[in-house]
């Protein structure tokens, strides 16, 4: 019995939330839907961890959907990299759900609660599906599932700007998705298969027809939109700002990371680093856009008065750090990029949860309303300070690990100007984080802050789980940087 379940884990991971979502709708009741969503998300987390463990011990896990062997059927394929990403995506998804109910009750009207939890599960299905599948068209399908459900989630925000932000995201996201679809179509035309492994084996790189180049271009640009790489990031600040707090926590921590995951897969397995970085100048371009994006987005973050928007711009900047690491295409650089996906998910998820706590108690995410809240909400404010130190990359926080790896990889690759610029850019993070810290602890309390009470424990504990994790993974790195390194070596080892 156990063995039977074990053999079907990759598909269970997708089927459970996918089936639970309509069940949530059927219950028609917010509480029941929440209970179901929570149980399912915890189960998916358990599944992902088991799968990751399995890949670490026995290598790649393959699963043939409906026993149709590839390339006729769809193949699910879990390796260390996908296991790692799906573990933290489902883990953070579960923690955010634990955190969710009070915030959801505050920000979303009662009648929509069950729909919210159903959509949340759908979004999770899409994200996990992108990690688990080995079929390129399937990637697109899951990408659309997650995107469509996140448009719906974002539009639930309590202001009237939320639907507009969702619509903006819908337009840009759909353009991105269409680009990806065109890219996939062209590759299918050239190779006659949709299985990623098969495509990689058959695609003619050098001296190949121009179609292949065009396909790569479409895929890259399409994914850059979904990753919110500068200057294709314009959808992100509004979407993060106007979405309900819980949605922002979840999407900020997971959605862009999974797009980065898909990007890495496509670059390293289909386009191959040799072609992308040696023949094509993709590494230089990525580095250029990352660095420009890091600086511009960080400076933009400094001038925001809305804290969620501030964090959103910071996310755009942090995506730049991940891509910097990836563009090095060395084991250290790639593992820096991968581990930063994880570390940043923890840090940014935690910080958005803090913002959610303040939104609940102070009724606002404007910095001017947070004045002096450090006196009445010391624990929540302390969580911001710790998370913020992580974002800056101070030692003993997770952010330091990513930054150190990135720095060493830049030196290994002899790109010391990149290293210097990267360090300078992180000083900008000091400015935007510390602006908030000073407002919290030193300003005269605003009226709302003076009358506020500490955030409820049901929200504070999950927040501190994530914030605490940034400290744990800042010291003990064998399960973050260690796995990321294995994943990076596997990704690079599969190529000549």
């Amino acid at each position, binding site marked *: 019995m156990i063995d039977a379940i074990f053999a079907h884990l990759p598909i269970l991971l997708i089927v459970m939330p996918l089936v639970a979502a309509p069940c949530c709708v059927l219950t028609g009741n917010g509480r029941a839907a929440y209970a179901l969503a929570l149980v399912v998300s915890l189960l998916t987390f358990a599944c992902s961890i088991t799968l990751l463990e399995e890949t670490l011990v026995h290598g790649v896990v393959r699963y043939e959907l409906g026993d149709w062997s590839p390339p006729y059927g769809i193949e699910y394929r879990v390796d260390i990299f996908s296991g790692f990403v799906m573990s933290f995506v489902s883990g953070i998804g579960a923690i955010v759900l634990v955190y969710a109910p009070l915030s959801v009750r505050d920000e979303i009207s009662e009648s929509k609660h069950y729909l919210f939890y159903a959509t949340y599960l759908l979004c999770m299905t899409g994200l996990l599906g992108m990690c688990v599948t080995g079929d390129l068209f399937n990637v697109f399908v899951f990408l659309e599932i997650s995107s469509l459900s996140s448009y719906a989630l974002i539009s639930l925000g309590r202001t009237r700007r939320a639907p507009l932000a969702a619509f903006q995201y819908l337009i840009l996201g759909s353009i991105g998705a269409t680009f990806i679809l065109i890219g996939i179509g062209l590759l299918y035309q050239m190779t006659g298969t949709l299985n990623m492994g098969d495509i990689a084996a058959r695609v003619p790189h050098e001296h190949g027809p121009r179609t292949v180049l065009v396909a790569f271009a479409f895929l890259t640009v399409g994914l850059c939109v979904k990753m919110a790489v500068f200057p294709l990031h314009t959808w992100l600040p509004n979407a993060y700002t106007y979405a309900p707090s819980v949605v922002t926590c979840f999407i900020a921590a997971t959605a862009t990371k999974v797009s980065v995951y898909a990007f890495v897969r496509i670059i390293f397995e289909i386009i191959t680093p040799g072609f992308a970085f040696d023949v094509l100048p993709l590494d230089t371009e990525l580095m250029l856009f990352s660095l420009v994006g890091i600086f511009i987005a960080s400076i933009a973050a400094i001038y925001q008065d809305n804290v969620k928007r501030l964090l959103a711009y910071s996310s755009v900047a942090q995506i730049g750090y991940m891509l910097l690491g990836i563009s090095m295409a060395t084991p250290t650089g790639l593992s820096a990029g991968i581990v930063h996906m994880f570390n940043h998910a923890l840090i940014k998820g935690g910080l958005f949860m803090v913002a959610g706590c303040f939104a609940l108690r102070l009724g606002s995410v404007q910095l001017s309303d947070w004045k002096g809240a450090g006196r009445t909400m010391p624990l929540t404010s302390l969580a911001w300070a710790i998370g913020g*130190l992580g974002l*800056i*990359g*101070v*030692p*003993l926080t997770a952010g330091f*690990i990513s930054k*150190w*790896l990135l*720095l*060493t990889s830049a*030196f*290994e690759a002899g790109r*010391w100007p990149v*290293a*210097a610029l990267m*360090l*300078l850019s*992180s*000083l900008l993070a*000091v400015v935007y984080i*510390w602006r908030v810290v*000073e407002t919290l*602890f*030193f300003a005269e309390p605003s009226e709302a802050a003076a009358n506020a009470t500490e955030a409820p424990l049901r929200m504070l504990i999950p927040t501190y789980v994530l914030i605490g994790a940034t400290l744990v993974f800042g*010291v003990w*790195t064998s399960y973050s*940087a260690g796995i990321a*390194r294995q994943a990076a070596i596997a990704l690079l080892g599969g190529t000549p």
Partner: protein
Amino acid sequence: MSPDHMIWISLALPILAVGLIVFFGKTPDLRDGSSGTIAGLLFIVTASLSIGVFAGERPEWNLGEMLPGFEIAFRVEPLGMLFALVASGLWILTTAYAIGYMRGHHEKQQTRFFACFAIAIFAALAAAFSANLFTLFIAYEVMTISTYPLVTHHGTEEAKRGGRIYLGILLSTSIAFFMLAIVWTWSLAGTVDFKLGGILADAVAENRISQTGLAVLVGLFAFGIGKAALMPFHRWLPAAMVAPTPVSALLHAVAVVKVGVFSVMKVCVYIFGLELLRETGVSLYLAYVAGFTLVVASLVAMTKDNLKARLAYSTIGQLAYITLGAMLATPNSVIGGGMHIAMHAVGKITLFFCAGAIYVAAHKKNISEMEGLGRKMPLTFAAFLIASVSIIGLPPGGGAWSKWFLAVGTVETHQYLLTAALMVSSLLNIAYLIPIPMRAFMKPKSDTPDDPSQETGSWLANMQEAPMMCVVPLCVTAIGSVVLFFAAEWIYQALLPITMTPS
């Protein structure tokens, strides 16, 4: 108990203190008592560790790899041992002083205050014992973060501004320069371990780094270690003076600033190697930067009427002495610099203690208001005078020896301009320190000239000293700065091994 164990015990004790302080937060007597007890225990542990270390032992303790190739490891050598001794010894006195001061002032948030204090001591010890740059860097940053709440303790607008400059300069220099320098060193040497004679000699011999590159690297370290307060990155030190006086005393006379100059010395001795620095002369321009800093800081100090601000600029100048010693890289200058870590720490903490005592007893912050105060507070001002003598570098103050060795270092390297700078600065030290106790003793009290009670009764009845908890520590440190004059030989012998070149 083997010396290896004593390393982790001495690191665990301050952490234990943090736990106890937070646990006993509601009962101040237990809280402060446990803080003091652990400070005492810590000094016993470091003192017994030092016996072996000064006899030539090099105890080690390896906590494990944090990232491949970068481990958290500790290895005690004489320079770090001296620094740890100074920091842990003065922690006892500061704890006693802080209890008197904080209670006398009815300061709020005392639990947070003592807890952050203990973390800073932990960071100082971790830095002192660090076996590689990676560990040193982590301890350095822990120190920066843990002292921020101390600097901004009062939570006022002024505290906020001071804290912003403090954190801004220290974090940005360490991230932008220090971290870059460490990784650069690692890419050149393949390791970041401290090793006598340095680890960069191979890279230089194989021409993997040019002379200019090497000079830039030394500069990155010297300026990146912002806590050494080399101009133009010195502004954080006066800004941090908004902190309560015990913080200024321990952290800005001992722990924070000394971690800075200590790191600079450690980098010069164990990363570059004195021989390499001497042969290539790449660090000489930094000796001039230090020379510039020490003269200018003394000049600025003369213009300050606020006592703590004057002491802050004096500290900047005295730190530059140590950096100068490290950058000249001769055995004498390095020993002088190392010695000055201890001499200046004991002297400057006395001066800060005095400043705090004056503030507690007479509520005076400005030097111009202190005239005639010496009759009311004879002990405080006598201690001030003794410590000033040591800082200036006159016998029988301990500072005489360290400044002597530094001056010998400048002559040995034929940098006579620097010798002149040292002499001018010493004169300036006299000019800005000695008038303070002199005017306090000699001049009549300015604001109440006709008060008859001043003239009647014995001098004892007129004494209005600060509470005992404040006065006793400052007398002890003042005596200490004289004792160090006679203990200089012992420090010299202890530090001699770090100047040797391994055969």
